[in-house]
């Protein structure tokens, strides 16, 4: 039941954070092993999803500090990207996919804590108060980290696009 309900979101979070499909598979297994070992410590008054996200976040950041993924190259975004059919024209679709690819690569320039905050807010769509609970941080710190992450990514996107256009 746990696997059916939570494997997809855990795997995707690990993939978005680490940027490597293989690494994400290993991390998901490690997280589930930790989950089974810690189930006895779970307080039933708390939200299970938030508790699992905290466990996932702690494991990902611990592993990041040990292995320093930022030095590694992230998997090619196009390999996993599914082009959406909601665009008005194929050109628009290509441009949007290009932006996503640049942002995906830009994640490597964010620190682990900022990267985690941006993933939780802008990819996973969590509320700020939920992120504050997951990351055990004050609300203001979370907002500040999300802001810094978005700024960094926006600057990277701007720089890469300008380079590409020969500006």
């Amino acid at each position, binding site marked *: 039941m746990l696997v059916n309900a939570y494997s997809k979101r855990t795997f995707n979070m690990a993939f978005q954070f680490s940027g490597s499909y293989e690494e994400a598979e290993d991390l998901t297994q490690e997280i589930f092993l930790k989950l089974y070992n810690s189930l006895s410590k779970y307080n039933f008054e708390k939200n299970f999803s938030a508790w699992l996200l905290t466990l996932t976040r702690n494991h990902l950041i611990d592993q990041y500090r040990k292995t320093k993924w930022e030095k590694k190259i992230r998997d090619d975004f196009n390999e996993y990207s599914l082009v959406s059919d909601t665009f008005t024209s194929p050109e628009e679709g290509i441009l949007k996919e290009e932006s996503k690819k640049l942002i995906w690569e830009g994640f490597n320039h964010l620190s682990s804590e900022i990267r985690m905050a941006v993933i939780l807010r802008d990819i996973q769509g969590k509320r700020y108060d939920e992120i504050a609970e997951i990351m055990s941080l004050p609300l203001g710190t979370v*907002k500040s980290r999300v802001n810094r992450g978005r700024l960094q990514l*926006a600057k990277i996107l701007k720089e890469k*696009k300008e380079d590409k256009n020969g500006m």
Partner: protein
Amino acid sequence: MVCKGIEELLSPYLEDELNPEEKLAVEEHLKTCQICADLFSFMKETKESLADFPELEVNENLINQLYSIPSKKKRFKLSLDFLVRPSLQPIFTAATILLIMISFYIFHPNKNLIDKSIDRQIHLGFSKIGRLYAKAESFTDSLAEYKDNILVSIKNVKFFRENEE
């Protein structure tokens, strides 16, 4: 307001979290500063792109591996269960005490004195045993000497002589 100050407000502006005064200040700045206007546009694009990131399906192999984790864990747990059986507790206690004594002996700074003391005690023990053995031997010898006399005395007891008659 300088650009640095505006940068801090772009994210809350994007999420409509500013108070009316701050909102007005940002809007006024974006009208006059092309660099900040571009940055805001890229930030908006970044946010929209992130929201549209693909969600990957988990492959079957990983799902199977995740399902097998509790049984693997159980097997491991069973294999170590014998260690917590109550019947083994006296053995573990004795082994612990023995190990403590051995480590006390090995790591004691005056190990030589302990060795000498043990030697002396063993030597004393051996000499005590030797003396006891010698006493026992002299007792058996004297018993052998008096054996015949004792037998005669027993035979001369009135009770036995009446039976013989």
